[in-house]
């Protein structure tokens, strides 16, 4: 099956910065694909250019939405922009219906879907309230609903978690998964890596417009060389060189006194490793840990900068 979106060698520069620097990636049907990177990494420029709001300077984009090649119909796309807002003087329900209609729904369908979303968001009793009477978080929820009310085949969500408290972030992870489960393809752009790694099927990590890593979370870990880690709580400060010499240990990080992180080889003989470590330092506690996406990203960027 051909990808929904196939992006090749796109680049975009502004007066003083190269926002997107020869990026290529493909988004497969029915997956959640995440564009990850810190603020200013070029995610929003990428998203806006994909939707034709700004133009790439070069490269190619091929769409195949709903089995049809070429630029997708506006009704097939859902877009939650990073720079977003609503008509503050308009009631909630009317706002949702309006955005549904703009995306090609009939008034009746838009109303039905808007009411369904309001119930899902636990805002059904605020339907007739004006937007500016809602809290910022609730306004964010309405913005999300307005972007995907029309059940798009391809949803582009730019920083969908910003402005939400942890409880609502969890809920919206669920909403995004539900969209995928109902058949939509989702392109997510975010900087909250700890959230994205839990929901994305595949991801592209970018920094200053360039690819840092890409693939599934496991592929990213593998490519980053980020295997399992043992975290040791020790009495006193361990000898870094001695620990590094233990069998199965690839690298050692002494984060703080009394704490050492051992990065292990792919398939270590754990018994031998622990015995050797036990001879080196007095162990008070031990647990294993997998590096987070955040750690992988920071490490990858740092290494790239060092190599440069």
């Amino acid at each position: 099956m051909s990808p929904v979106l196939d992006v090749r060698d796109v680049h975009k520069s502004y007066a003083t910065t190269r926002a997107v620097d020869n990026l290529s990636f493909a988004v497969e049907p029915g997956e959640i694909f995440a564009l990850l990177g810190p603020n200013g990494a070029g995610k929003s420029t990428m998203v806006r250019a994909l939707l034709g709001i700004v133009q790439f300077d070069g490269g190619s984009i091929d769409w195949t939405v709903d089995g049809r090649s070429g630029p997708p119909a506006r009704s097939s796309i859902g877009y939650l922009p990073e720079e977003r807002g609503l008509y503050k003087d308009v009631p909630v329900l009317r706002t949702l219906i309006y955005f549904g209609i703009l995306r090609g729904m009939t008034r009746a369908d838009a109303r039905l879907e808007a009411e369904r979303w309001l119930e899902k968001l636990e805002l059904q009793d605020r339907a007739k309230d004006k937007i500016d009477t809602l809290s910022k978080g609730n306004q964010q929820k309405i913005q999300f609903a307005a972007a995907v009310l029309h059940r798009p085949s391809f949803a582009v969500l730019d920083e969908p978690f910003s402005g939400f408290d942890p409880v609502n972030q969890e809920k919206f992870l669920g909403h995004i998964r539900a969209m995928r489960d109902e058949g939509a393809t989702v392109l997510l752009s975010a900087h909250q890596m700890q959230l994205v790694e839990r929901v994305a099927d595949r991801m592209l990590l970018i920094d200053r417009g360039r690819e840092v890593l890409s693939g599934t979370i496991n592929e990213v870990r593998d490519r980053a060389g980020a295997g399992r880690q043992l975290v040791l709580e020790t009495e006193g400060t361990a000898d870094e060189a001695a620990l590094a010499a233990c069998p199965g240990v690839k690298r050692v990080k002494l984060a703080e006194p009394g704490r050492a992180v051992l990065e292990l080889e792919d398939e270590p003989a754990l018994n031998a490793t622990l015995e050797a470590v036990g001879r080196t330092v007095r162990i008070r506690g031990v647990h294993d840990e997998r590096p987070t996406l955040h750690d992988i990203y920071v490490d990858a960027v740092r290494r790239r900068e060092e190599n440069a």
Partner: protein
Amino acid sequence: MRMALQVAAFEFLRVFKIKDAVITLVLFVCGALFYAWISGEEKRVKAPISVLGDAIQLENADHLPFNFLPAGAQSEDKLREMAASGDGPPVLVVHSIEDVEFFVKDERPSWYPQLLGVIRDAQRVAAMRGSGLSEDALSQVFADRQVELEVHEPRNEAEDQKRESIAFLCVMAMMLGVFMGNVHLFTGITGEKQNRVTESVMSAIPAQTWIDGKLIGLSLVAIYGLLVIAVCWFVGNEVYGIFREKFVLPLEIVDPVQFVVVLALTSLGFVLWFAFFGAIAATIDDPNTSSRSMFMFLPMMTMIVAIPGLNEPDDAMFVFWSIFPATSSTCMPVRLVVADPAWWELALAIGLLLPAIWVLRRFAGKVFATAMLTHGTELGWLEIWRVFRRA
């Protein structure tokens, strides 16, 4: 087009609030009552005057704001007492031809000079009769002599005045509509930019569809605003009329076909101006600091050129203004009401206005597409000019 109409309905319903219309109506009625209260002008009901004594002959006439009533059998003291207390009308006591006394409560009435004139005429007639002149001689003295008046191209001044009033109303309606619509246009568009609604909308519909919907919706807003003001004015005038002499609009001279043509021209004028202002508003980043807000007052220029046309509708310069697209929607209605422009002039005015609207609408769409997504800086004039040339 269907989507543009959806946008138009949304834009219109954002402004259309029946509660606000009712409040406006109440304010107009209160204003009418207040004005009736402070206005010194009394309602034109003929004031009665009791006349005691018959030494002079006082006759009532239609053009006079008072009526003479014989005092009957009541005494002078009683009449004075009633007039002083307000229970009776003012009293005119005619002791003799030379000795006439007018007694009135509080203050001299506004029609007193007219009363004085009538009394003096009656005194002269009585004096002449007393001098022994025969009835024939008196008839000769007071006979009306014929004066012939010949007017080259006679004008019905009263009719002309009525037409000028209606034409002035057309100009005012155009200005009111443009300003009301502009207020919503500027606050709406700059508000959308500041609220960051733009990217969501423009990912759903093309910029041209969006501005088209706005132009239709805001033209309806302008017409609706005029309608509200017309109803409020009408009701307020009726309320005022209960206490004072109400203003009478010479609607009898309005020809229905002419009315439809004027309405169409005015509506096209709204679309033209809103397209221009939509484009300007889209380039404004912060309405609080932008000097471009002053462009809102540009339509005043059309009023300035339209007013002289009330008196000189066929002046060559005014004929030009009534055809030129930027001013035709204001000036051609004036000529239609107070003059009789040739059919080709009207056709030419509309024939130029429609393409002008088309170009401005395209211009607004192009500016919209660029400027509505530009934050933090205003689109420069050079860039706007380039967009205009592309339109």
